[in-house]
């Protein structure tokens, strides 16, 4: 509306007028949509064409150019062998907490015991250095060490250390939703789940994806119909667990098993927490359309 027309000094009248105009516009839009839907029902090609032409710009689709995305992964086999310990051993995980952990950490450990395969939980004791723990694990053929980080009675992070020679990952944990709080949740079974890794595109994303690949065994029990999804969106990794149900020959249903939580990579280190390969810093958040995974 041009500034000339807005000379109504009574506020209520002005609002009334504005509401009228708005209502009129809405009606026009609805009419147009109805008309379009009718046309498209008769001629589905029109809908296809419209959807092709009008692609919404999202932050994801407008991400800053990253040359590592379509770059061939160099030394892929060596990388693979390093994570899968030359493919000879199935994953064997030691789970522990930080020193002097509180109840929340142990509760989260209980949840992780159900999720991670072939896992042993060991209560963290005073007086053992990380170097000694790693040595202990390596001598007993553990392939990964997972440490739950709890701070002020909240689980804040997860550290994954691949054994015997790294790398080490540190993730921030947020938005944890307990199984009991998910409406209509199912009960998980001990079957080895299938794994869906979504949207890990860059070189760093590949490394993170490979960590999760190496943690879960490569031979899922399909009869369990359980799936773990790790979906990366804008550098946040969403953890979800579902069971799929074949309703009939065409329809497949999903039942969430829980829990839900979100991880964010904060640090990737070479070796057992030595040289930093990548670290999240606060100034990386300044640029909204730059993603690292």
């Amino acid at each position, binding site marked *: 509306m041009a500034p000339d027309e807005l000379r109504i000094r009574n506020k209520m009248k002005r609002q009334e007028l504005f509401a009228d105009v708005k209502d009129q516009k809405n009606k026009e839009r609805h009419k147009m949509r109805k008309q379009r839907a009718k046309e498209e029902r008769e001629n589905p090609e029109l809908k296809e064409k419209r959807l092709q032409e009008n692609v919404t710009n999202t932050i994801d689709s407008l991400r800053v150019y990253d040359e590592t995305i379509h770059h061939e992964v160099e030394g892929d086999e060596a990388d693979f062998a390093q994570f899968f310990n030359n493919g000879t051993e199935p994953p064997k995980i030691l789970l522990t907490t930080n020193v002097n952990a509180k109840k929340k950490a142990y509760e989260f450990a209980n949840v992780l015991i159900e999720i991670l395969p072939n896992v042993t939980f060991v209560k963290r004791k005073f007086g053992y250095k990380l170097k000694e723990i790693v040595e202990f694990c390596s001598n007993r053929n553990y392939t990964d060490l997972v440490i739950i980080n709890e701070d002020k009675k909240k689980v804040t992070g997860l550290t994954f250390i691949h054994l015997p*020679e790294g790398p080490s990952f540190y993730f921030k944990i947020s938005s944890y939703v307990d199984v009991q709080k998910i409406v209509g949740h199912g009960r998980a079974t001990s079957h080895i789940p299938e794994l869906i890794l979504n949207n890990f595109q860059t070189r760093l994303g590949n490394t993170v994806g490979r960590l999760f690949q190496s943690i879960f065994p490569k031979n899922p029990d399909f009869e369990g119909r359980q799936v773990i999804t790790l979906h990366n969106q804008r550098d946040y990794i969403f953890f979800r667990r579902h069971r799929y149900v074949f309703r009939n020959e065409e329809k497949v249903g999903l039942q969430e098993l829980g829990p839900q939580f979100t991880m964010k990579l904060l640090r990737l280190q070479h070796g057992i927490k030595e040289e930093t390969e990548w670290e999240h810093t606060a100034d990386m958040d300044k640029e909204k359309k730059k993603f690292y995974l």
Partner: protein
Amino acid sequence: MRLLIACDDSGSIKELICNKNTNTSVQTAPQPFHVGTHLPEGFDSRVEIIKMVGTQQLLVARANGSIHLIKLKRVDRDVSETDPAKEPIFQVSELHEASTVGGLFDEARLLSIHKSSKKRSRPRDGFVALELVPQTSNRIFSATKSGLVHVLSIENGELKLVSSNSVKAPLEFAQVYDLAAAQKTNSKHRASSQLTFAYGGEENLVKIAHFTSGYKTVKQIWEAKNVSNDRLDLKVPVWPTKLKFLEPASAGADEGKVNFQFVTMNRLGFFRQYRTLTGRKPMLSKALLPKNEFATQLQAINSDVTPAGNIRSSSFDNLQFITSDLKKNVFSFTAASGPLGKYGNGDITGYASFLNIQKNYLLQGGLDRYVRVFDPESRAMICKCYTGSKISSVVMVEEEEIEVPQLKENKKRKPKHGDDKAEAEEDEELWSTLESSAKKLKKN
């Protein structure tokens, strides 16, 4: 410029040809002309150090304990598929392995030390130095983390092991003293044609040693002393990570005494200056980094340096250095004023495992898989290229720019005179409408 890059992930050497202002992270910026992969041998045999010997030969130390002599050959680039008139003209290198010497590691020595080490990962032996012996063209000095020092020779294009000795392990560095030529001219000093080097590492104080009787034995001639205990009377950890020699002090020199000057970087971020004539403790020890951050590199930038990186100056004053920490920072500093500024402006995201000044350019590569070239003085980034692999060594072979043929289509057309007039009219119109609308707003 032409760079040779040691790529860890595939164990290869990559040849990168690019011009200034190349940036692979920006699509509109100039891109590298050529990236060629040579001699891939896998991660376990990755290249740790590359050194040029003349212009046609390359020495390469690999992580499997072998040193290779590689011949470089230039060939014309294949431009048969594209239009040669539109393509820049340059040659690419072909690398051929000429000779190899293997079995230069002794990992068992490191394993026994590892228990008391502060490093958590399982130790792997590796090369810490690969240098041409000063004033020779066919003798090579190499040192390993496990404390083995080797001398090799190039005879008729073949590498041969001359001698192997051991010094106290572990080594973090072994720095060859190549300022002897300057020393020779000064009649006051001992004319030294011996191969002298300094070494040190974790709980291994800086020591200076030289080879005697034709590289057969190593004799230690000087050892540093640790700094005094801290204010809680606790021992300060010993962990020198890099050392650079300066020219020896001339004042008060005694012929019989060991006369060296050098600077060291300590893992805990201490920069130290030593003069062997004054004593075994450092003359100056300055903390550069906050607590719990580790420094790894040391390079002088505002002084003339020798091929081995030693400083052609006898004065510690006004020297400017660069260093890097284990996180992602590369910064310059002076002993007097501390840190001056960071390189890369937040662009470097991983540990810079390689830093070196060659032909007045600062070459940087590391765990973030980019090779970057900086101007050391202004700290401006000249070039940035994604290599796809972690980098452990970079050599600048040539610094010349490659001429890019200017295409006629690319040339900007000169705007015609008539266009200017039309533009001016348009501007006038725009101004008049803007002015009228401004008046209206004022009324309201």
